[in-house]
């Protein structure tokens, strides 16, 4: 009989309509500003720089090797290397980035900078509420905005951060005979409050 197919379809819509009042599977709206769906561990949005200890300037892991700048596919990283060296968290004198800019209006969140970084210095952030009314300087993040503590990293990617810390501690233990005996190991900054959140 003509019309039965339509009625069958209407039954589906009716079932969905009624079901959406009590069936959990059909009730999926996330009431966004008040309620947020949890972001998974792996979620990534824009990169940030990690620093150990409590001083963002002294504890920055980045040594301005410019590998990420070179590998970044859309070329949104800009680094100017320092002329002098300063001791890093292990006491070894290293270069540091005088300027480290990321243009987040270009960044495509591809995570390649994280993959190529040999120093575990750049990681992906989870902040996505970045809408602004200004474009140019508002969307160019400088070193101050990018630097976030290791504790913050632990708070957003707990599993990954623990693995990174273990890896760095292992590397530090290997180097220890050569390095100064009082060199602090990575992950000592657990007590610092998150500064970037």
């Amino acid at each position: 009989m003509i019309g039965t197919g339509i009625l069958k379809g209407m039954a589906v819509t009716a079932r969905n309509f009624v079901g959406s009042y009590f069936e959990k599977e059909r009730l999926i709206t996330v009431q966004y500003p008040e309620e947020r769906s949890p972001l998974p561990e792996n979620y990534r949005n824009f990169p940030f720089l990690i620093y150990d200890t409590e001083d963002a300037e002294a504890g920055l892991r980045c040594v301005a090797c410019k590998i990420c700048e070179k590998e970044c596919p859309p070329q949104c990283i800009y680094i100017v290397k320092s002329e002098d060296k300063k001791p890093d968290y292990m006491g070894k004198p290293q270069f540091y980035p005088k300027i480290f800019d990321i243009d987040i209006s270009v960044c495509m969140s591809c995570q390649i900078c994280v993959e190529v970084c040999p120093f575990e210095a750049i990681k992906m952030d989870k902040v996505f509420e970045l809408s602004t009314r200004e474009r140019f300087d508002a969307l160019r993040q400088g070193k101050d905005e990018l630097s976030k503590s290791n504790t913050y990293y632990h708070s957003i990617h707990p599993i990954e951060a623990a693995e990174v810390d273990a890896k760095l501690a292992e590397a530090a233990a290997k180097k220890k005979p050569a390095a100064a005996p009082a060199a602090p190991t990575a992950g000592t900054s657990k007590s610092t409050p998150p500064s970037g959140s």
Partner: protein
Amino acid sequence: MSLGFQELEAAERPPTIMTSRLEGELLEVSMGPQHPSTHGVFRMNVALDGEIVRKLKPVFGYLHRNHEKIGENTSYLGSMPYTDRLDYFCSMTNNWAYALSVEKLAGIEVPERAEYLRVILAELTRLQNHASLLGFLLSDMGAWGTPLMYAFREREKILDLFESLSGSRMMCDYMRFGGCRVDASPEWLARAKEVVNRFPKFLDEFENLIVENEILIARTQNVGKLSPGLAISAGITGPMLRACGVNYDIRKVDGYGYYPRFKFRIPLGEHGDTYDRLMMRALEMRESIAILNQAFEQIPAGPVMNPKVKIRAFKPPVGEAYGRIEAPKGELGFYLISDGSSNPYRYRVRPPSFINLTILEDLCLGHTVADVMVILGSVDIVMGEVDR
């Protein structure tokens, strides 16, 4: 800009003599690039006789974002996230096609677990692509909203899986040459299994909604018929080719990525019309679920990345390679020429939805304007891939 009707011969055009009736006058209509249909910035120049399409010329390039040129100026690894943005519904299959081509070019082995993960992710991609296609197609037909909402509800579940594995909902950037970037945890596999197990329920519901619907049948059956001969000659691939009854599925023919290990059938159409193309997607989703269930059973433990492959300064030997996979929309191929440096000398994408549009005019001639949208919807195009 000219309408692009220069080739409309004067002889074909009926004489423009003023008569009392306007019959025979062709009306030129430009549909798109901003058009209420949900297929992005696609434009068609249509010549109409009353409501009947007499000529149709697609106009491309409104999303031509120079993917190939950028690919030639970027390192091999750097092109991987760009492939996500080709067919932005199916970033996983795009990744796979590109990784497969580079693996051919450089002779890289892929670990067993990585191949299984690739199959799982490609089939999940096929599920969400076909589901949203059905939603879009129905919304083009006038079922405004409802089926699309149902389709997106299911799609979100699969996107959540992608997000928790790769970190992004749409732009996964998950595969690497010689494997996958991160391993899937057992919890993730369990979650994926649950989503897949629930999917048939949605399919049943969706099929109840559409399969017997008289309006849908009237709008799609015998509309936009495609003959197998023309389909093969015009290079049509994917569900569109199989809807004409041609048994050609690259998963079976090339047998890449351990597909020969799985038992699945290739659904074939009979008439090659819009209805067959629509149903082809519904049937393919069932087969994808079968593949997924076997893959969840068989997936072995082990590494997901070939340790010999360098991430940085990756330079394949001089030569060229063409690799292709069966993407949800058809044959997605990458043609790479290497000159031994870190960038490809030539980087070419064989986009299935672009080539599937070759016969759009043939499908639409003689049908009404309203059918054009339906036919276009059943071709399943994504502009990111058509224009690149």
